[in-house]
């Protein structure tokens, strides 16, 4: 919020309001917010935690504020990147021009577990692969935005964007009459419209959309049910669905009803036991056959993971240029591919200064933050790196921007990232003005993942 010149412009009005507030009242509000989240049931499970308890993601009541000018640049950059990702997926599953042109090494696709041969020689309805994208972005300077991850599979977190705003509106209605903040509440309506516009060609009438969840034990189950509810569509599990007349249909009280667009929150591997993992109980047998026959839309398309793993990430500036003919608006973090022997040596020599991530990992699991690691952690990680170098990439530690959070001792700066959500349809890319701001609650920490003790806050994009 502060810069060497004082309060940063987007925060001016908020700062005026905040300085008039009584600290005790805000503390009370903060507790109210927590009670609100407990009531609505927004919790998440931490994978790998022995007790597998449900936790509440801490909410901070100071909004992160983005000016309209900053947002305009940011959303242009996301739009460009999302279009490039879709063009890349179309190409990689069809003519593979980018491999022929030598821009990306063939090995990187050939050996990639996320590359699904079953998607080759096929174009999904509307030529859309990533119906929903949640691009992770960090700011390092006044006008410097970096993309951390492209999240083209099934990005989660949009329910926090919506609930955080709802909570702020309830707690501080006066703030929203004083400061003009762009709405995010239309997201479910737009999501539904965007998905419906990707229905298969043969669909006549109003497309039937449904959300497929792995079930109540999934860490994001709350979000699945929330989104289905907000869109006014059915929430289904694999065992509710079967193949009927060449389509996927769900059991209803009046018999089977055809689904045209399935927003699935089940991973590729478990999606269809007839085609992929035969032991999966979560998926829908035959859905890949129905899909290839052109009778259903699966969102996001299977196989999109080949576009968002961390080894492909390092080529994103080239990918953007190859398909859009433009230079990438958003920067990429310099990425060292440990598969290359010279690079591995560099990474091992500089481990204490680097962030090392698993190529296929997500959620902050299995990563090393060099500057925050103990000597033992560093040497243990070095051993893992030597055993499977191709499994890792390394990046310099960025000096992430900070925003203020509310603490017992007043405002204090913490590092944040931002995940805006983009919807893709044949009509174009639509980006909700806002997103999920994740904040590292520990002073100095750079890890914002909720599974690693991060929190969230509302994200405001000002009207002008």
């Amino acid at each position, binding site marked *: 919020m502060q810069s060497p010149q004082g309060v940063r412009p987007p925060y001016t009005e908020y700062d005026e309001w905040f300085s008039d507030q009584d600290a005790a009242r805000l503390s009370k509000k903060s507790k109210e917010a927590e009670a609100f989240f407990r009531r609505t049931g927004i919790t998440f499970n931490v994978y790998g935690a022995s007790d597998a308890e449900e936790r509440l993601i801490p909410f901070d009541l100071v909004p992160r504020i983005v000016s309209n000018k900053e947002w305009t640049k940011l959303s242009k950059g996301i739009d460009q990147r999302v279009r490039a990702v879709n063009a890349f997926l179309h190409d990689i599953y*069809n*003519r*593979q021009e980018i*491999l022929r042109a030598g821009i990306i090494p*063939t090995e990187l696709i*050939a*050996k990639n577990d996320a590359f699904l*041969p*079953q*998607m*080759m*020689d*096929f174009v999904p309805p509307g030529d859309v692969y990533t119906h929903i994208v949640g691009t992770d972005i960090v700011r390092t300077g006044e006008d410097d935005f970096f993309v951390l991850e492209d999240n083209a599979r099934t990005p989660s977190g949009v329910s926090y964007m919506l609930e955080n705003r709802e909570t702020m509106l309830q707690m501080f209605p006066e703030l929203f009459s004083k400061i003009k903040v762009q709405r995010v509440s239309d997201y479910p309506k737009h999501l539904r419209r965007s998905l419906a516009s990707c229905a298969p060609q043969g669909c006549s009438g109003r497309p039937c959309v449904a959300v497929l969840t792995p079930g109540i034990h999934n860490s994001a189950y709350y979000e699945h049910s929330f989104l289905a509810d907000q869109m006014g569509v059915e929430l289904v599990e694999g065992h509710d669905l*079967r*193949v009927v*007349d*060449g389509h996927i249909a769900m059991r209803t009280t009046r018999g089977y009803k055809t689904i045209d667009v399935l927003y699935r929150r089940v991973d590729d591997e478990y999606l269809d*036991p*007839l*085609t992929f993992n*035969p032991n999966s109980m979560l998926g829908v*047998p*035959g859905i890949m*056959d*129905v899909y*290839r*026959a*052109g*009778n259903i839309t699966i969102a996001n398309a299977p196989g999109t993971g080949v576009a968002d793993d961390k080894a492909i990430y390092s080529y994103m500036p080239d990918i953007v240029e190859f398909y859009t003919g433009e230079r990438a608006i958003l920067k990429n973090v310099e990425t060292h591919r440990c598969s290359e022997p010279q690079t591995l040596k560099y990474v091992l020599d500089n481990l204490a200064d680097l962030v090392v991530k698993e190529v296929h990992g997500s959620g902050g699991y299995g990563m090393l933050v060099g500057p925050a690691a103990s000597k033992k952690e560093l040497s243990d990680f070095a051993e893992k790196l030597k055993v499977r170098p191709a499994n890792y990439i390394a990046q310099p530690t960025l000096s992430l921007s900070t925003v203020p959070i509310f603490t017992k001792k007043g405002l204090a700066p913490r590092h944040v990232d931002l995940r805006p959500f983009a919807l893709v349809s044949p009509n174009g890319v639509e980006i909700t003005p806002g997103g999920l701001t994740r904040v590292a609650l520990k002073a100095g920490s750079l890890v914002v993942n909720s599974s690693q003790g991060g929190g969230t806050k509302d994200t405001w994009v000002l009207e002008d």
Partner: protein
Amino acid sequence: MQLQISHTTHYRYDQPVDYSLQKVRLRPKASELQDIIDWSLIIENGKLETSYTDHYGNHTDLISIEKGAQDLTITASGTVHTSDTSGILGKIYGRAPLWHFLQPTPLTTPGERIKSLARIVSNGENALNDLHTLSAAILKTAPYQIGQTQADTNAEEALQIGSGVCQDHANIFASAARQAGFPARYVSGYLMMNDRVDQDASHAWAEVHLDDLGWVGFDISNGIAPDEKYVRIATGRDAHDAAPISGMRMGSSDESMIVSLQVQQ
């Protein structure tokens, strides 16, 4: 040569089945080697749900069983005109790139035994001869014998067991050829054996890609190049990709299967 084929797969269940799906690759594709004169798929106690062309260009049908049925019969039959090209299909390519046929699958991941066999093949001018030598070596190491391997036996395991059927031979050959640096694929289809009309089972062989010749077929189990007595049905990286029928069903009923196959001139 004009071949008439009739291939019936009959499933029996000891209890009525509520829901079951079969993914079926039983329609031959036209190529330089074969023209399809006529072909049909007849389903009893089941229904054709949908059809499409898969990522290897195979005609694929999805079939469901009639609710409550205890039988399902799928009959593929028709007439195919074949030519003898000494096993050479040539430079005919689908969308799947050649590098894709160099990648292992769970059924064809090489272990020490396959790696050792693959050393037979040099990457030089004698590749074609070496591949024939490899084919013979596989049959010697794992002679044809029914009942020792299962549908999910992988190539390395079959070598270890020391015997196999055409499916195992084709998986082993594809795995070893890839290990030696050649794109290779599995082919399922039919073979007319001269001494009989009723054939034991549908057949499987392999194809390897050579820069000068394109795709070349090897029938490892019979130690020969596929000729006009062969009909290609489906291709893929392994027996799973090109399986004539793979299915799933709900419930606990036991399944038995009877196959009858007739190939004649």
